[in-house]
């Protein structure tokens, strides 16, 4: 198909629907939950669960490429758009409130990890629950106190108990998004799980890293702390301790053998290729919310942006708004290209990380600028601009910091290994 920029119709339709959801279910509650950290937005969770069931979408996690789910589409020879739809949905929800978006049931990064690194049997076994009666969560636990960006230095261990054929996990994980909702047995929620990254052979470094599914309720796994944060306060960020946690052998995602390769680590990276543009999309939703709010306020004050004039004739505000338009539009196109590549099975490690670099920059710059231009209105908690400023910053931190994604981009363009450029 030649170069084209018409958003697919199904995407436009969902965006339209989600705008209403965003306004009714999210924006109206944004401030409340920002000021009541650790309260759970049950209305939103239940609404989204019901809505997604009605749409036949059990999970926001992208469907396996080319398997049964997309069969009908392929028959009609329509280009696959699963990731594109997902990116558009996430952007639209994040426009409402990115913290709420992170409270969307359906498995989040946990399910994405199972999708990317699991076998077909594991996908069937672990992902079915998201289409169940109750809203259900899953989370991904990579980060530890001593290992953030440097994922290869995680200390969590998994040892095979040959007698029982079970894996025994020990470790301390931090900053787990939705860790609480995935593990704590709330009555309103279905039984969730966490995906825990641990080493099966510390001497093997990256090659020894594997992901394990730990079901909620497994003895020895426990939420030890909920963080207090700059923004996205409605989303729980948990510390999780694992003490002699036993999981069945087949809960290890992908291959259990430690060849001296980095298959396990590559599993994590495959997850990131898939999820980075989606995280980028969420950051851009926040940025668009802020920019649109600014434009509304300017219009209310009789300020028109005179698109088309040379820079020399523009006011400072016009320049800023135009620059923000450029940033936001181009960042969105980078996300779309990255997910379009994923849909069409083109390797997209470069585009995926570039979209995240860009969105991290754009999200923070736009929200910071909007607060600045709005002056007291921007700084006041009577409006949401200051909240978006706090929310947006996370895009440049999780799912690989801006620096880590720059490293990934640089390695790609320079053809360097991790050892050559660290």
């Amino acid at each position, binding site marked *: 198909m030649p170069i084209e920029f018409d958003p697919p119709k199904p995407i436009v339709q969902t965006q339209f629907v989600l705008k209403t959801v965003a306004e009714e279910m999210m924006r109206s509650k944004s401030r409340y939950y920002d000021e009541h950290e650790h309260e759970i937005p049950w209305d939103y969770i239940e609404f989204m669960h019901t809505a997604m069931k009605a749409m036949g979408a059990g999970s926001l996690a992208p469907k396996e490429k080319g398997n049964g789910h997309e069969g009908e589409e392929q028959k009609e020879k329509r*280009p696959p758009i699963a990731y594109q739809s997902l990116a558009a949905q996430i952007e639209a929800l994040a426009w409402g409130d990115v913290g709420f978006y992170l409270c969307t049931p359906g498995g989040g990064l946990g399910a994405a990890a199972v999708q990317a690194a699991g076998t077909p049997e594991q996908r069937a076994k672990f992902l079915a629950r998201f289409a169940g009666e109750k809203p259900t969560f899953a989370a991904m636990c990579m980060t530890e106190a001593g290992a953030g960006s440097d994922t290869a230095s995680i200390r969590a261990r998994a040892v095979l108990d040959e007698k029982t054929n079970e894996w025994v996990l020990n470790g301390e994980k931090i900053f787990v998004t939705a860790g609480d909702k995935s593990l704590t047995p709330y009555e309103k929620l279905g039984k969730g799980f966490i995906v825990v990254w641990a080493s099966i052979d510390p001497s093997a470094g990256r090659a020894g890293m594997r992901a394990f599914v730990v079901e909620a309720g497994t003895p020895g796994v426990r939420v030890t702390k909920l963080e207090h944060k700059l923004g996205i306060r409605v989303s729980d960020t948990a510390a999780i301790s694992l003490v002699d946690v036993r999981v069945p052998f087949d809960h290890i995602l992908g291959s259990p053998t430690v060849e001296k390769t980095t298959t396990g680590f590559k599993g994590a990276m495959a997850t990131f290729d898939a999820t980075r543009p989606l995280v980028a999309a969420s950051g851009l939703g926040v940025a668009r919310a802020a920019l649109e709010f600014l434009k509304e306020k300017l219009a209310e004050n009789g300020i028109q942006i005179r*698109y088309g004039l040379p820079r020399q004739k523009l006011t400072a505000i016009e320049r800023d708004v135009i620059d923000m338009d*450029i940033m936001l539009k181009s960042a969105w196109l980078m996300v779309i*290209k990255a997910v379009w590549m994923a849909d069409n099975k083109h390797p997209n490690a470069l585009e995926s990380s570039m979209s995240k670099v860009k969105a991290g920059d754009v999200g923070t710059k736009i929200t910071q600028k909007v607060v600045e231009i709005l002056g007291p209105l921007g700084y006041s908690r009577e409006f949401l601009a200051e909240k978006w400023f706090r929310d947006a910053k996370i895009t440049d931190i999780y799912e690989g910091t801006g620096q880590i994604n720059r490293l990934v981009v640089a390695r790609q363009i320079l053809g*360097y290994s991790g050892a050559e450029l660290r």
Partner: protein
Amino acid sequence: MYSFELTEEQQMLIEAVGKYAGNDLRAAAHDAEENHDLPKKLISKGWELGLLQASIPEAYGGFGERSAVTGVLAVEEMAFGDLAGTLAVMTPSLFATPILLAGTEEQKQAYLPKVIEGDWAPYTAALIEYAFDFDPLALRTTATLAGDEYVLNGEKAFVPFAKEAEAMIVYASLEGKTQGFIVPKGAAGLTIGDEREKLMSLNALPMYRVKLDNVKVPASNRLGGASGMDFEPVLASMRLAAASAAVGVANAAFEYSKNYAKEREAFGVKIAQKQAIAFMLAEMRTEIEASRLLTWEAAWKLDAGKDNAFTEAYLAYMGAADMAMMVTDRAVQILGGHGYIREHPVEMWMRNGRGFATFTGLAII
């Protein structure tokens, strides 16, 4: 649907343009800039790629249909070779494309076949004016109707090949609106400056000041005839040409400095292995991609006749001008002192890079 795939035809075209840009333009660029001389044979060779010819329908002597998307792809690829050369090759488009877009049937019949029938021939256009706040939508050059003639007054700057031009389009303000007028060679009151423009870059491209002192042209020389023209799509096409050229120049600077950084050693490692350098390269690549996609989208919107195509083209242009400055500046930085020396092309690209904020009207897709 979204798609980022070039058609087979576009791929073939880009490959041909790429060869010319990489082998011919790039090889000649340094001397052309230093000697203020672009070999005519080089221009002819670029003309033979048939970019303009392929955008004009058979009825007017061409062999295709205009596509802004193909246009931005081709310009980016050619500007990767050399900007001045690209602008020279494309100068006749400055005359032909607005006629194709906004001319009357008679104007198309009268001029299009003539421009494209043979070898590259100097047809041009005069838009830029010598004022810090030059604005294509608020020109100082005026046109007034007197009987069945228009009278043009004002001064134009940066007009490529004005000296030898067979004819040029002069843009002037008619009752506050920018309109185009076809002015033939030697028209009374038309004075071409004796000396070439002296600019920070583009020394290879002969450009001139053009004075219009009560230049009279028949009313039928107004682009679009009595009802005139819609200047917006023409301006959008100029801005997209500048934007895609900016992407091409930036990409040239990026590739060059990237390769240099992989060779150059300092403190026992390649400088590309230092994050300060690697991160600059990552950001350069990212911003090039951002601008490129914005340019593609705007071009697609222009082709699809979307309402907001004009604004999108403006945004693509503004973004690309900033991007090109940032990227070319960093390319020089990555080469360090060597980047400052004219033996390496990055300093020229940096001079090019600063120009895109000013270059509206030097090319059109």
